[in-house]
């Protein structure tokens, strides 16, 4: 937990490599998961995750403990992931963020994919586990700006304000971009989740 992370950071700062090793082991999977969600390619995510820890190590002296170690290393990982994407992507941000009436299609009453498929008690269902896997898979099919905002929101847990600051966009844009990202995700999951849904309950729009 966090108090222990801080003790490990102190020890690592004093040159204790075992402490740094323990920090890496403790956080490596989540750091990798964040990178994977954003950059999509497993090998690139692996490199980004490693680079994140290398940077953490070189800036241990700067870590003040204002935020948790986890927040810090995930922030570095997501920055690196977004930087990696920005070197590659064709930026269509403005057009992707606009919201029009037609964009609401597929998200209204009678068109819920997950809620219908998972039912009232989704806690422990096998379908829920499958959907989680499909969702991670579907994430790779989303545009980069949608992947990054979903990962920052869902894995890093950033608030609207933090997302706006991190991505350099207005809060309103944060909300509309998240909406588009989630709607696309829902459409991608539609065919899969709809398989187990009652007649008329599944099969969302793929538009």
């Amino acid at each position, binding site marked *: *937990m*966090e*108090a*222990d992370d801080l003790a490990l950071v102190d020890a690592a700062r004093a040159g204790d490599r075992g402490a740094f090793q323990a920090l890496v082991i*403790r*956080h490596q999977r*989540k750091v990798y998961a964040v990178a994977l969600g954003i950059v999509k390619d497993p090998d690139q995510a692996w490199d980004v995750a490693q680079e994140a820890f290398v940077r953490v190590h070189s800036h241990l002296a700067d870590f003040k403990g204002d935020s948790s170690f*986890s927040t810090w290393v995930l922030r570095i990982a997501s920055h690196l992931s977004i930087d990696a994407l920005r070197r590659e992507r064709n930026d269509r941000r403005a057009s992707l963020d606009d919201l029009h009436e037609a964009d609401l299609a597929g998200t209204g009453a009678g068109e819920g994919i997950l809620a219908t498929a998972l039912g009232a008690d989704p*806690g*422990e269902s096998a379908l*829920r*586990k499958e959907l989680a896997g499909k969702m991670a898979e579907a994430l790779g099919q989303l545009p980069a700006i949608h992947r990054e905002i979903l990962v920052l929101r869902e894995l890093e847990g950033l608030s609207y304000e933090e997302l706006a600051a991190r991505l350099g966009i207005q809060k309103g844009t944060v909300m509309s971009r998240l909406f588009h990202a989630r709607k696309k995700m829902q459409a991608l999951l539609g065919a899969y989740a709809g398989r187990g849904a009652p007649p008329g309950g599944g099969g969302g729009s793929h538009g």
Partner: protein
Amino acid sequence: MTRTAAACLALLLPTLSLADGPATSPAPVPVRVRILRGARQAPPAFDPKLADLRSQLSKLSYVRWEQVSEQTVDMSDRKPHTVQLPNGDEVTLVVEAVKPRTITVEVALSRRRTRSRLTIGRGQRIVHQVTAERDGVAYFVTVHGMP
């Protein structure tokens, strides 16, 4: 490479026996068994009943710890004791050996086909995850032998 080395270790290390004297009589041993619930995505909280486990649990990234159940069982050598878990699974505990300074306990999860045999010293506790993590929540069993 690491796995190869681990396999070599598996062959070599049993020869390094524990100098702890012979096993004692098969008299029942009181064993304190607790089931814990750890959650990652929840407001941080630490059940005061788990204070003695803080140093072990604090190594994990779960932020909310609660004790679900507790029992003290008189366990005889090699006689299995089964504990039901909140998700319907069960964990089977067997006291394999009791020595003056150590106790060896087997923790078996039949549904996962996982079996761990752990020897701990007096005052130590085994913390063993017993369910896969789902939605940031996992259950653990702790075993504290009191020979």
